[in-house]
């Protein structure tokens, strides 16, 4: 217990003193996950909206599949992306394995279904309300997608933040495709796993505290945005 207290104490010291190694890891984590969230949003939001408003054969199957993909285990995603990027894989020539780009790819694969599935639900509810009005104005089903995305922006942001929360906190995928190489692909979660096993509790705890804070900030943002959404949705 004494150990833990002193570790915690020195980990706060690390955070506050701006420990270079610590902040390099945090920044890399943020860079990887924010990039992944951006890419996943660019794919997932329109995809979700499309699934919400379109009526084609097989749509329901696609919806069920994407919902199922929300629960993809990160290690499986890591393994699949590894197989794609490894030297013998179809994308092996790109030499991306064990780079931050590989980690971004893995996280994009992991969270695009989350963002797409959540935004499909959000847009579908909004569309049920807007559909006839928008068609009356003369918009086609597909033409109404930009309007639905814009007017649903507050709720959609919560979907994006859910994706970010998942990306920043997962360890299984990035450790497989990133390899947890010091100064190159070592992010918060993989560092915590490694440093804990090495007994270097200060760094592990410092990173854990920052990760927790990030989770708190994301959750606070979600509920704050939720309030904004309720205000504009005021009927």
């Amino acid at each position, binding site marked *: 217990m004494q150990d833990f207290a002193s570790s915690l104490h020195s980990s706060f010291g690390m955070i506050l003193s701006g420990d270079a190694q610590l902040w390099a890891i945090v920044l890399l984590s943020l860079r990887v996950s924010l990039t992944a969230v951006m890419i996943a949003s660019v794919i997932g939001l329109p995809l979700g909206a499309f699934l919400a408003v379109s009526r084609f054969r097989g749509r329901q199957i696609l919806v069920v599949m994407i919902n199922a993909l929300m629960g993809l285990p990160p290690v499986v995603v890591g393994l699949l992306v590894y197989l794609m990027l490894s030297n013998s894989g179809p994308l092996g020539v790109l030499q991306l394995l064990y780079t931050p780009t590989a980690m971004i790819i893995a996280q994009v694969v992991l969270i695009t279904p989350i963002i797409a599935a959540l935004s499909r639900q959000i847009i579908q509810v909004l569309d049920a309300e807007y559909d*006839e*009005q928008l*068609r*009356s*104005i*003369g918009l086609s089903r597909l033409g109404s997608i930009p*309007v639905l995305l814009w007017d649903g922006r507050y709720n959609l942001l919560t979907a994006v933040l859910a994706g970010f929360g998942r990306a920043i906190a997962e360890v299984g995928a990035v450790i497989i495709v990133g390899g947890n190489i010091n100064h190159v692909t070592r992010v918060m979660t993989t560092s915590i796993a490694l440093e804990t096993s090495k007994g270097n509790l200060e760094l592990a705890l410092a990173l854990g505290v920052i990760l927790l804070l990030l989770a708190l900030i994301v959750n606070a943002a979600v509920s704050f945005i939720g309030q904004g959404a309720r205000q*504009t*949705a*005021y009927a």
Partner: protein
Amino acid sequence: MLEQVNKAVWQTSPIMDPKAPTVLELCDIRLIRDEQHLVNIPNLTIRQGAPTLIMGPNGAGKSLLLRLMHGLISPTQGRVDFDTDVQQAMVFQRPVLLRRSVAGNIDFVLKAHRIPRAVRKDRVNALLRMADLIPKARQSARTLSGGEQQRLALVRALALKPKILFLDEPTASLDPSATHAIEALIRQANDAGTKIIMVTHDPGQASRLGGEIVFLHKGQVLEQTGVSDFLTEPKSTAAKHYLAGGLLF
């Protein structure tokens, strides 16, 4: 069975000028859901001129009829004929306001039809003035009161100067002065050449607006006749009951 029902339909001659150009024509329209004939109209012609007012009890199919005419739902059978170049607009029974400002709601419609920005600004202001909503222009549309929402929905529908305007009980739940404000806007649009096709339950409103009544009962048109004729001597027993009940309040 159905044929018998059809024969029973009361065909009175329309009071509208029979030579006035046709705005809309329903031919052999049937809307069937879950084996129920929700709308069943062998023929209905709507002509240019004074407002066409649709009356009938709750669940008669009035809102469905407006949706069919506006093209929002397709009939199970039959067709609705109208000039596709003609601009239409509709105000729903429960107005749908977008999650935008009051002005943004109107601007959106104009933008969707690629009206240039310079023109849009003036048009939005003119419409806001009509609705008496200038002070609320920047407010979120969904925080407006019920009556203000109705007024906004109405002027938004007028934004593109439609030739046909469908209104589904636009003054339900409004106070008398708000009702008169809306009626003034409707009359103004009518005078400007917009064909008004409107659902109402209010006989007083019907006689104030004038025009013809289409009386709908269980999805069928039982009467199409002038407002005063309809209100003073309805032909069908269903209409007699409807009006007797209505006038008791």
